């Protein structure tokens, strides 16, 4: 019997191998992680819902398969933390909002289905900014999540629950969604790995929509290989999502097993630097560029002038789409209903429910988006933002004529203290400066740890960006960088995190 503290430090690949070889059972692994959650989640608050019985039942099914001599998949029996934005027919799905408190959907999201089909053990649902709107998880209606590196700091957002679950060793794998950086920025500030696949790479069916043309589900893990294994399990064409890409999934696992940057051209974009970047972040980023050179990459400086407009365009497109996507929360069919005392009109009940059920940031964006789509303003706001989107896509296209991947800091600063930016939406929005252009263009990107900022000892993320449908390049480069850093540090970065 391996002890809990050893099991929880294992990577997903290691767990799967040990279960397959019979060294560990899926139940042992699940129990270890449930015990870890029990021990630390009161402090971290990564989870909104823990499905103890469901997880153990899934684990027992894996062990039974193993006992019956069936071949196990590459992630069979590995525990996972699922962002509470994916529908689950056996667990509540709240999207971090009061308006869906207690709602148990009648159907599983495609991602949920694929995880179950891969025999992944779903431990529970993780905390998030309400409707994925935020960069700190402070906008959750169920309270903030702490960053395992320093519980008084934010774990990033919107997927702070998923990143914190990984960094606190509550789960070796997690699922996030990335509309403007909600997978990558949390990964960066918690010293974990997060990937936003190419738009259309992972089905959005059953993923509660924030901004349909930007939302993309993806894998979160502690290593590049684990992220690739999870990526492969959830990606691929889904006939229920007409924006899903009908093409083979890029060979991400193969790329992660064969990390190399030898002979690659790596771009550094001028626009991803300057004012607002923390010194320690810039320092670690520059070291990463030097490392890439030393590993055989050629560095190319790039100018992508439209990137400067990304944040503004994003904050017109995302709220516009959300104002329409969130209109369905009207108290008629599901979720919260306030003020239905038999005397009020449906309109009043809808208004009272939305007043009570939506948080400030959600309301702010609904109002902003409603305004931007209004006749007379459409061309100036939504229309212009779509033009900027085209320009950014062109900048990327031009850039990728010259380079194979682009690198940048994932986010301009390390984890900031809880409460510091809560009342300053503009400061909060700046956290997504480097991640947003990728969402607007629809291509793929990864964040992985590149060290601790000297001034605060907190993790810094390196972002790698690849062209659409070349997700495998992220893993090829990421695996090479990861290996070189681990060799340099002598251990994975998370070893340096304080024990909880």
């Amino acid at each position, binding site marked *: 019997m391996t002890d809990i503290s050893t099991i929880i430090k294992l990577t997903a690949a290691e767990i799967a191998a040990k279960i397959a070889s019979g060294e560990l059972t899926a139940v042992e692994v699940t129990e270890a992680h449930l015990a870890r959650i029990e021990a630390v989640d009161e402090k971290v608050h990564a989870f909104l819902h823990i499905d103890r019985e469901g997880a153990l039942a899934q684990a027992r099914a894996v062990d039974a398969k193993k006992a019956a001599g069936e071949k196990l998949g590459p992630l069979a029996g590995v525990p996972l933390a699922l962002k509470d934005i994916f*529908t689950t027919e056996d667990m509540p799905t709240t999207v971090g909002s009061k308006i869906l408190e207690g709602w148990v959907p009648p159907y599983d999201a495609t991602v949920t289905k694929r995880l179950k089909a891969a025999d992944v053990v779903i431990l529970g649902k993780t905390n998030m900014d309400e409707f994925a709107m935020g960069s700190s998880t402070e906008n959750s209606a169920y309270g903030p999540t702490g960053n395992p590196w320093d519980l008084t700091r934010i774990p990033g957002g919107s997927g702070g629950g998923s990143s914190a679950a990984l960094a606190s060793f509550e789960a070796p794998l997690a699922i996030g969604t990335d509309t403007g950086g909600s997978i990558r920025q949390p990964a960066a500030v918690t010293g974990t790995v997060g990937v936003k696949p190419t*738009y259309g790479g992972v089905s959005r069916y059953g993923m509660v929509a924030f901004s349909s043309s930007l939302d993309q589900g993806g894998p979160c893990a502690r290593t590049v290989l684990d992220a690739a294994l999870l990526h492969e399990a959830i990606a691929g064409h889904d006939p229920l*999502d007409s924006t899903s890409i009908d093409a083979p999934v890029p060979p991400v696992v193969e790329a992660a097993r064969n990390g190399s940057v030898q002979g690659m051209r790596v771009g550094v974009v001028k626009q991803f630097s300057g004012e607002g970047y923390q010194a320690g972040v810039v320092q670690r980023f520059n070291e990463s560029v030097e490392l890439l050179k030393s590993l055989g990459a050629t560095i190319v400086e790039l100018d992508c002038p439209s990137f400067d407009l990304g944040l503004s365009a994003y904050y017109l497109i995302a709220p516009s789409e959300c104002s329409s996507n969130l209109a369905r929360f009207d108290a008629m069919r599901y979720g919260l209903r306030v003020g239905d005392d038999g005397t009020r009109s449906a309109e009043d009940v809808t208004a009272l429910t939305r007043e009570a059920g939506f948080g400030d940031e959600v309301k702010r964006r609904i109002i902003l988006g409603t305004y931007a789509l209004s006749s007379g303003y459409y061309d100036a706001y939504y229309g212009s933002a779509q033009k900027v989107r085209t320009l950014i896509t062109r900048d990327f296209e031009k850039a990728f004529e010259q380079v194979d991947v682009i690198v940048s800091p994932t986010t301009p600063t390390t984890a900031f203290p809880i409460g510091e930016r809560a009342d300053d939406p503009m400061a909060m929005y700046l956290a997504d400066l480097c991640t947003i252009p990728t969402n607007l263009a629809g291509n793929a990107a990864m964040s992985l740890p590149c060290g601790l900022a000297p001034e605060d000892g907190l993790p810094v993320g390196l972002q790698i960006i690849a062209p659409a449908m070349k997700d495998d390049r992220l893993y090829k480069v990421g695996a090479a960088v990861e290996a070189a850093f681990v060799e340099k540090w002598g251990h994975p970065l998370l070893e340096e995190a304080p024990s909880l």
Partner: protein
Amino acid sequence: MTVIDLESYEDALATYDPVMGLEVHVELGTKTKMFCGCSTELKQDANSQTCPVCLGLPGALPVVNEIGVESAIKIGLALNCEIAEWCRFARKNYFYPDMPKNFQTSQYDEPIAFDGYLDVQLEDGEIFRVQIERAHMEEDTGKSTHVGGATGRIHGASHSLLDYNRAGIPLIEIVTKPIEGAGARAPEVAKAYVAELRELIKALGVSEARMEMGQMRCDVNLSLRPHGREAFGTRSETKNVNSLRSVERAARFEIQHRGVALDLETGGTIVQETRHFHEEDGSTTAGRIKDNAEDYRYFPEPDLVPVAPARDWVEELRKGLPELPRLRRARLKEEWGVSEHDMQSILNAGAVDLIVATTEVGAPADQARKWWMGELARNANETGRALDELGVTPAPVPAALRFRPGAPPFRLSASAAGFPGPWSRRRSSRRCGSAAAARSPPSTTASGVCPVPACRPRASCRRP
């Protein structure tokens, strides 16, 4: 209901020219809904034909029904429209409890078909060309039943019941350009247009287009302008006028009603409003005032990829178009040797296709016509049923005619002749009974993206 003073029809027309716009919604006879795999069959049990997609549950996504697109293209082609090489769906945002997502997935500035026309024949034989602005695809809403009030309208009701079985059923909205120059014949043109459109839809096999069942619904927009003036007047929109006779009456009523309103006008403009049509007396009453504040905040639907019908597919569909109903009627009239008046009766009785089918199985035309237009037509009329709802099919008719040579072709006791009880009430299926519909593959939506390569979006159009 308030009593409205109406100007006489002649007085109104002495001063004003009517300008009409007709908007017709056709419910398609596809097996499944526009964006999900739910059946479109009419069911009594409320909310029994629903799924996460048509209920608009969080996370659910639409997928376009290929047969819906094909039907839209057929309608567009039959109306002499251009078929868009590339078009998108758009979201029409407004709140109403029977609309699950609080936006309707529709088309806005990029309709699948546009710039066409339909020639319609008036009673004196004159052909009037109605210009078509567009035909676009959209989804139907659910149905609200307001309980506890006197009128069945929401005002005064104690509560409302919502049934989403209809939500997501495919609709094609066909919009005319302003119809000018019809003068006193405007109501007749309106009726003839809707009648011709209905025949066309039926001939295409894309819908049964039964107005009494709401499969075809008409909005009559009407404005008046003084003779000689270019600019259009302020219009009224009379919603859900659901029979041919009502279309004519509504247009007539509004000409008189608007005439009064304009006469009373003291320099300002009269209000643009939505009006309700009353079947009982053919009048209309004011609904909501429509001002320019109504803003649907249209934007391209990001959950659906653009529709880019391949040109060869469109051409294939064009080749398969049936003979236009107007031309077919002229040909049959000639072949059967009947008068214009008799042909009109056959048409009104809904007997054209039945007579054709009966001649196709071997009956002489005149006998086939007498068979259907005699006792059967009378019975259908008296019992308020359609001729093809009586349970009598054309196949056994020639045998029955031979069985009693020289005798009157049909007697009430003729059920002994071996066809299913003609008078048993059989519920009609909303399914389109034509061969074309029967050939349709079951559901494209259940399996998602259109299986026909022709309908798939171009790779470069994947993202909005």
